[in-house]
């Protein structure tokens, strides 16, 4: 594409910076010298995709290989999609502006179930055939990884292979294998058979799924030498794993426009609703000196003036205060600020507050997740009401006036009392503000509560649970609103249709492939955006394919074969069942640091708390 053609393409596009490229640290190579061209596709718009740490890691890692050129592709926003169609242009990669169809490997990251139609849309806009079976050659190999790959079954018709678990090692192995097979002019089948031998690679076409008359899974049979169970990959030593020394720095503002510095993987907590807390096990920490060095290096190469520490629960890093001190030893002089997201309520000390208050005082966000202690025991969110209150006390004393609290509804074993508990707790926080003698004059407190609908996810103790019915959710939401007395409490709910689709796709099976295709052909895309989600069309797609979405929302028995049972994320089914049974008894499980609960994640090695 010439510059002139590009400029015509974006003439009436609102944010051409999304597609223009040329950012600091983006990688250009001579494509004549490249054996494997890799298109890293993020199925959402630029601002969101560019904020994603996994993409930054794999982009740098793949571009370190001299035979590989990894480029970026994002979902075009609606105005750009219209312009592509009007100008008869295919979706292209940002770096080379070559069409998506010219790539050897087209890799998608699966961050969110509602981005699935965007994957189909991007392939179609790139002139790539949607169905895996229709793409005969080794060229245009479509692969996918990321958290949703733990149940990739709805995407099996479209994706040639999935990468399970952490991508650093397995992606490099896969690309190297691809290079060999491309040189040898192998067939796609030969390559896929060889790829299936790599730990962490799941080739869905090598597994025959049989369903019973009631549509539950009867059996999953591997073909040829494919393993009966595919294990996710983990990185054993985070101190030695590849981490980028530079990030691509966008010109336009993106969602997380700063250095993101990973400090550990996994989570010690074991909240029973949380998929990330289960599938990223075991806990592995990065040494604080390495964290500090990497963060400093990234600031120097990007010019960013903010570092955000990244993990599932920042305050569970075993040496957080020493780490912050270490970072402050250079960051103050370099005029870099440090932000600590994902802080837990119980760890929020005045000292820590003082350190991070060098950053803007805007609002604070905490996630009690449930309104009553009983319910927090059910979900194993081990924080007490007193801890929540003490934290808010600290925050108010520190000058904060906006508090945001996250809750869920529709959790297993939930009653109306638990719903009322959400408001009771929020009201206590409001009252607390007015008890503070040092409260700022003339300013009023605002407690914003965000109540989302719980979606049961694979590989969690609640993977068997029912998704709450539409009537029940509606009743709970109405009760919550009528129970609220204070104007200082602002309530927002998650979109019920969004949660519904997420719940269907999260625990879906291969029969949903046809539904996805149909929904896409009816025009569904950008489903994660409330303004674009067309629920009617989705319902039309389910009806046209003869698939009842409610089938996927029901409670499942422990002995039912789940669509993802042939995938192994180390946490055992026995552990998950034990946890679900404890939930029913309102019994809590201690965190990994206190006592090993035998989840199975130590089997892969690297666990910081494995039984010694």
């Amino acid at each position, binding site marked *: 594409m010439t510059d002139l053609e590009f400029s015509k393409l974006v003439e009436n596009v609102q944010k051409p*910076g999304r597609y223009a490229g*040329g950012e600091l640290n983006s990688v250009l190579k001579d494509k004549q010298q490249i054996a494997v061209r890799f298109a890293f596709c993020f199925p959402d718009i630029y601002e969101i995709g560019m904020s994603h740490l996994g993409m930054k890691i794999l982009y740098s890692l793949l571009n370190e290989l001299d035979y590989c050129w990894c480029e970026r592709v994002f979902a075009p926003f609606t105005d750009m999609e219209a312009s592509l169609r009007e100008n008869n242009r295919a979706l292209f990669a940002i770096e080379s502006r070559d069409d998506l169809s010219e790539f050897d490997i087209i890799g998608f990251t699966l961050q969110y179930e509602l981005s699935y139609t965007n994957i189909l849309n991007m392939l179609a806009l790139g002139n790539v055939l949607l169905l895996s079976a229709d793409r005969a050659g080794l060229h245009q190999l479509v692969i996918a990884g990321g958290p949703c790959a733990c149940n990739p079954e709805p995407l099996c018709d479209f994706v040639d292979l999935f990468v399970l678990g952490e991508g650093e090692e397995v992606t490099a192995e896969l690309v190297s294998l691809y290079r060999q097979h491309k040189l040898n002019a192998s067939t796609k089948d030969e390559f896929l058979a060889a790829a299936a031998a790599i730990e962490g690679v799941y080739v869905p076409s090598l597994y025959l799924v049989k369903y019973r008359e009631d549509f539950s899974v009867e059996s999953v049979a591997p073909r040829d030498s494919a393993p009966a169970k595919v294990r996710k990959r983990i990185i054993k030593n985070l101190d030695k794993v590849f981490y980028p020394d530079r990030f691509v720095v966008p010109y336009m*503002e993106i969602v997380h*426009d700063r250095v993101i510095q990973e400090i550990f993987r996994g989570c010690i907590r074991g909240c029973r609703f949380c998929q990330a807390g289960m599938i990223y096990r075991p806990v592995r920490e990065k040494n604080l000196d390495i964290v500090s060095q990497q963060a400093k290096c990234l600031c120097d190469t990007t010019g960013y003036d903010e570092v955000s520490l990244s993990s599932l629960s920042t305050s569970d890093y075993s040496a957080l205060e020493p780490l912050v001190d270490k970072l402050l030893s250079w960051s103050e002089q370099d005029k870099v600020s440090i932000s600590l997201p994902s802080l837990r309520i119980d760890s929020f000390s005045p000292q820590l507050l003082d350190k991070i208050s060098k*950053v*803007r005082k805007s609002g604070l966000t905490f996630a009690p997740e449930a309104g009553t202690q009983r319910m927090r025991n059910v979900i194993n969110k081990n924080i007490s009401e007193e801890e929540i209150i003490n934290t808010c006390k600290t925050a108010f004393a520190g000058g904060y006036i906006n508090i945001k609290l996250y809750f869920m509804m529709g959790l297993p074993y939930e009653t109306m009392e638990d719903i009322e508990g959400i408001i009771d707790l929020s009201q206590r926080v409001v009252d607390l503000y007015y008890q503070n003698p040092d409260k700022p004059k003339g300013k009023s407190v605002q407690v914003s509560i965000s109540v989302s609908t719980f979606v049961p996810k694979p590989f969690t103790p609640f993977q068997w649970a029912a998704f709450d019915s539409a009537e029940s959710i509606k009743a709970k939401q109405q009760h919550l609103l009528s129970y609220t007395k204070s104007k200082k409490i602002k309530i927002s709910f998650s979109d019920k249709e969004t949660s519904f689709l997420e719940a269907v796709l999260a625990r879906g099976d291969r029969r949903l492939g046809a539904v996805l295709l149909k929904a896409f052909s009816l025009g569904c895309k950008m489903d994660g955006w409330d303004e674009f989600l067309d629920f009617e069309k989705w319902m039309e797609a389910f009806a046209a394919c003869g698939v009842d979405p409610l089938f996927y929302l029901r409670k499942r028995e422990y002995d039912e074969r789940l669509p993802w049972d042939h995938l192994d994320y180390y946490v055992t089914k026995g552990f998950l069942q034990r946890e679900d049974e404890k939930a029913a008894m309102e019994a809590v499980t201690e965190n990994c640091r206190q006592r090993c609960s035998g989840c199975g994640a130590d089997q892969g090695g690297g666990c910081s708390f494995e039984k010694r």
Partner: protein
Amino acid sequence: MRNVRLFYQKKGNAKYISHLDMNRFMMRAVKRSGVPVWYTEGFNPHPFITFTMPLSLGFETNYDSIEFKIEGEMTNEEIAERFRNVFPATMPVIGVKDCVLKSKELKYASFTITLQAADREAINAYFEKDEIIVSKKTKKGTINQIDIKEKIHNLSLTENGALRLYMVLPAGSEENLNPAVILDAMKLQAVQFTIVGISRNELLDKDFNLFE
């Protein structure tokens, strides 16, 4: 502390960087350059930089500048070299000079507009009319119809493969005229053309001398 101006160009891809994004880009570029630019002393210290004249999204430029204060010893050559090292190839650095004029002494900017599929006669006729009425948005958001005939200086139309329209327009804190406003008005008068590119060539003072 002395006040300096950094002069640079913005070419090709760089034209898609909006003014707000340029501002953030400069903050990071200053940081990477290691040039001792004076920082604000507020809650979130940041390099104190002023853009001489914001540039519209989609425009290229041969001569753009930012102003800042320098703390400590560093020659203008060294400052220019350091920025050269951190700017992308699409933004070549021209040089660094001590501020000669004040920002408010900027009065004009010259533009070259490259057109395709253009009706040369109609364009000539358009500019030869006694008055040229365009719609201009005021700061309050209302739209005024104004005659800009007297505001266009040194107009010329040359043809060399593509048609090139050159003009000097008011620019600065007191009065400003964006060539896009004129092009929009021409379109409304059914003058045929396609815009290939718009470039702001130079920034000028009241005597049409280069703004330095």
